């Protein structure tokens, strides 16, 4: 016994090294579970505070560009105003009954919240963005994030009271349902971690006509993203004769190096949609309940 203690004391430095190394590797490989833990939330709050202060200074230097971007959005919104349209037939007028009927009732599906980016990275293979709004501002997981000009940025993956973390499109585990603007055919957008200016669009059948320069938008079938917002532009077509699907290179519309003000978009029906989806899967695919 005494020898064991002596042995441990002799190599105490080495054992400290081993212990700490195991601890850090545990942090590294149980990231997703650990993410939920209180400790990281606390760390998130702390780094968030520092990042907010720094961003406040940095924002001054890019105000010009941000103004231009906001101006463009305002411009596009002004064009949508009712007063910009004239009705050719003045004798006919449509009257909407003030009592709302079931058949005319509209359901609000998306809700936009503004937020600012306080930390951003594009250098790694798993890039996250930190926003200055958290659960206190009503932000929850699985909301989508659009840039100030409407281009898609990513999806919220974790939330603390004052801050939230976005999994950027530049993340090797990110998969987003997108569609071609021209034809409406959908595919999956991924990233291979190589070049931040090149996303990959897979799963689009070769029967669809695609040209370089075609615009890719968010799909109608996405649970997270509102449909029709620009994702990118097709910049290259990789020919592969072995499959019936395209492999397209897409240049993202959002400039990930220069994100400042973003919109967090909530799909108000997300819970209902995903629950229905899950229930269906369970019912059809569970072999015990449904022997065939």
């Amino acid at each position, binding site marked *: 016994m005494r020898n064991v203690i002596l042995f441990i004391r002799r190599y*105490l*430095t080495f054992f*400290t*090294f081993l212990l*700490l*190394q195991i*601890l*850090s*590797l*545990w*942090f*590294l*490989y149980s*990231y997703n579970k*650990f993410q939920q833990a209180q400790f*990281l939330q606390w*760390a*998130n709050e*702390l*780094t968030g505070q*520092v*990042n907010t202060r*720094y961003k406040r200074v940095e924002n001054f230097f890019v105000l010009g560009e941000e103004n231009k971007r906001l101006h463009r959005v305002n411009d596009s919104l002004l064009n949508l105003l009712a007063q910009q349209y004239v009705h050719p037939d003045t004798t006919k007028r449509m009257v909407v009954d003030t009592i709302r009927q079931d058949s005319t009732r509209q359901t609000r599906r998306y809700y936009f919240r503004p937020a600012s980016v306080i*930390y*951003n*990275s*594009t*250098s*790694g*293979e*798993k890039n*996250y963005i*930190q926003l200055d709004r958290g659960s206190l501002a009503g932000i929850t997981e699985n909301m989508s994030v659009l840039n100030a000009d409407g281009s898609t940025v990513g999806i919220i993956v974790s939330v603390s009271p004052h801050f939230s*973390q976005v999994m950027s499109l530049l993340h*090797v585990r990110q998969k987003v349902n997108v569609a071609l603007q021209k034809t409406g055919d959908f595919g999956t957008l991924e990233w291979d*971690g*190589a*070049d*931040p200016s090149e996303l990959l669009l897979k799963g689009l059948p070769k029967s669809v006509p695609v040209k370089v320069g075609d615009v890719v938008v968010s799909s109608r079938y996405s649970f997270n993203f509102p449909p029709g917002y620009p994702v990118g532009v097709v910049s290259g077509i990789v020919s592969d004769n072995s499959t019936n699907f395209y492999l397209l290179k897409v240049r993202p519309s959002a400039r990930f*190096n220069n994100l400042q003000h973003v919109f967090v978009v909530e799909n108000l029906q997300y819970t209902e949609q995903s629950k229905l989806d899950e229930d269906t899967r369970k019912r059809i695919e569970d072999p015990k309940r449904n022997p065939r």
Partner: protein
Amino acid sequence: MREVIRNIVRFLLFLFIEIYVLDSIPHLHRFISPSLYFIFLLWLPFSIRPRLLLWIAFFTGLIVDYFMQSPGLHASACLVLAFIRPFLIGVLTPRDSTEFNYREPSAQSLLWAPYVIYITVLTFSYHTWLVFLEWLSFGSFGDFLIKTFASTAISLLLIITIELLFPRQLRYRTNVGG
């Protein structure tokens, strides 16, 4: 006491540069991701005990990790660096300690050739371990090799530039004062 404050200021400075400069600028190439903050560990005094060095390295790495959203990655690499450092210093320092009484590793205290070996070996081991961990979850072996060497080279360039631009005041360790 002065030594402690000096090192804390140094740590904060390098942390700031790492997070808001090196990690924010657009990269030269996807294979090149240089780091600088671990210079803080290279510059710690000779007199620091290996076990304390390990703990300092662990928390340094962990703080960087929390800013970069990758818990454990940099901590692990810093630990490797801190584990090798005492052995390397043992090999590179002159044998007779009467002539040798500088406080911390530098080009002046170790002389240029051994000092360059010192930073090269430590930078290389840091980057190898870091890229190795990334490679385990993602990427190919070719990428791993290129990334290690490219990042090490650029990091070394940065470290030597800093060494030449901001020479540290070196005082002999004396019995007078702290």
